[in-house]
């Protein structure tokens, strides 16, 4: 009973806190540009507004169109239950849970792409093709990063992998994971979340034909994914296992905030890359994580 209550409470906390991050990013962007910007809680208002609206369906869309957005959200929510948060630990953890985490995220992506293809729009097919082709490289990077953590800590579950310090490879991992965070969440060097030109959009173009509650679910899922990656990055780099629980919590909170502000700064100071440059950046991220793996492996052998 207590376990179930704990599970529900954690999930509720994740759901409630996630939409803060895009708000903070937008605030940072507005601040750099010298504007006042939307309130930090803007996404909550947007979600509430969307939830009350009706749904417009394409004639071509099968029921899977609605199901896919729901399944995608559930997959991300499932992934959040696997990620430990500092001293509080994870709701679920077992040997090899990181593989389930990676595949939950892959399932969520599959669902978004599926729903996008259901509408029968040419633009959405294009966006899906781009999303999937970037994901191939981003996923390889994520797997290399997780493998590096695995080899470093000789542990096969996320709580054991994320607690101790990562040593010399931490800087490489931080760089690689930050690039993956930007790519997976469709932030600026890869995609512009504010763009409204179909030819250059990736994520935004896939959700063009969604409206009302399904769009709200997709937006909320995206914010949870951002929080998930920010937490993963923070805990992979910070040695939170050695701190007292209260300080570890503070350190993780500060780390997530720093990552979020960093995303906002990147978004204000960089322009979106040309498509042909994107695989290069993702390859660099992959190599960063690969070298972190090499350092972990060599350090373990010596």
């Amino acid at each position, binding site marked *: 009973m207590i376990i179930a209550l704990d599970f529900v409470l954690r999930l509720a906390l994740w759901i409630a806190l996630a939409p803060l991050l895009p708000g903070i990013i937008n605030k940072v962007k507005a601040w750099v540009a010298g504007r006042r910007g939307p309130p930090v809680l803007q996404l909550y208002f947007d979600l509430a507004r969307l939830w009350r609206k009706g749904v417009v369906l394409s004639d071509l869309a099968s029921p899977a169109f609605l199901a896919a957005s729901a399944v995608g959200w559930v997959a991300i929510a499932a992934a959040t239950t696997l990620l430990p948060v500092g001293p509080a630990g994870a709701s679920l953890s077992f040997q090899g849970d990181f593989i389930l985490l990676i595949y939950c995220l892959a399932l969520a992506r599959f669902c978004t792409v599926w729903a996008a293809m259901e509408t029968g729009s040419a633009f959405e097919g294009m966006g899906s093709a781009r999303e999937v082709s970037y994901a191939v490289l981003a996923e390889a990077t994520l797997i290399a990063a997780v493998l590096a953590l695995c080899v470093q800590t000789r542990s096969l579950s996320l709580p054991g992998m994320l607690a101790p310090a990562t040593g010399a490879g931490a800087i490489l991992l931080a760089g690689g994971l930050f690039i993956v965070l930007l790519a997976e969440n469709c932030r600026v060097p890869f995609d512009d979340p504010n763009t409204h030109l179909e030819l250059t959009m990736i994520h935004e173009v896939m959700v063009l034909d969604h409206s009302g509650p399904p769009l709200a679910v997709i937006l909320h899922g995206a914010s949870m994914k951002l929080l998930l990656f920010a937490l993963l990055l923070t805990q992979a780099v910070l040695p939170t296992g050695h701190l007292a629980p209260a300080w570890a919590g503070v350190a993780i909170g500060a780390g997530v905030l720093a990552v979020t502000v960093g995303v906002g700064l990147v978004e204000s100071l960089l322009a979106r890359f040309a498509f042909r*440059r994107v695989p*290069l950046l993702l*390859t*660099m991220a992959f190599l960063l994580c*690969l*070298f972190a793996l090499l350092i972990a492996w*060599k350090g373990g052998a010596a």
Partner: protein
Amino acid sequence: MNETLNLLVGMAMGLNLLALGSGRLPTLIRTVALQGMTLGIMPLLIEPRFEWPVVLVSFATVVGKGWIIPSLLRRAMRTANIDREIEPFIGFVPSLLLGAGGTIAAVALSRALPLLPEHAGSMLVPGALASVLTGFVLLIGRTKAISQVCGYLILENGIYLFGLLLIQATPLLVDAGILLDVTVGVFVIGIIVDRIQRAFDSLDTRKLTVLRE
């Protein structure tokens, strides 16, 4: 001390990959300059005692590779008035992967080499092999004469790293001579680049296969 040295060699290896991935000539030149300076301070770390010749050679390397050679290259680029974009034969992603594969192979295989016991834990040999490989990839895979010069400089940096293993055995005069050679070489290449530009209206080395009166 050995730790700092390994960190510097690691940095030089990272700069190798940056050189392979950079798409603009000024970035490439800056990367090579930074690598030269990183290599320049290594003799100070290897030599346990403070000796004037070592300090002098180290200083000359930092100034020569970090300042004189890059400014010669930049001047050549300016006078030849060339496009700053690099057009690769081997694309950026394949050359990066080649470089990374070479680096990993160098780290993994250097254990199999019959090295002296005092060099076994050092990253100098893998760093040298990786730099030589990167230099080769840049020499083969780029079309512009100046990026090929940068490849040649990275190749030379790799050989210099090998030379650091023998720092106790070779006279420093040799090091100084090599440095002078490289500087003069880049100086001459700067002039040649200008000539190629005037004769062919381009620095693309693919066009050099055509004979002209």
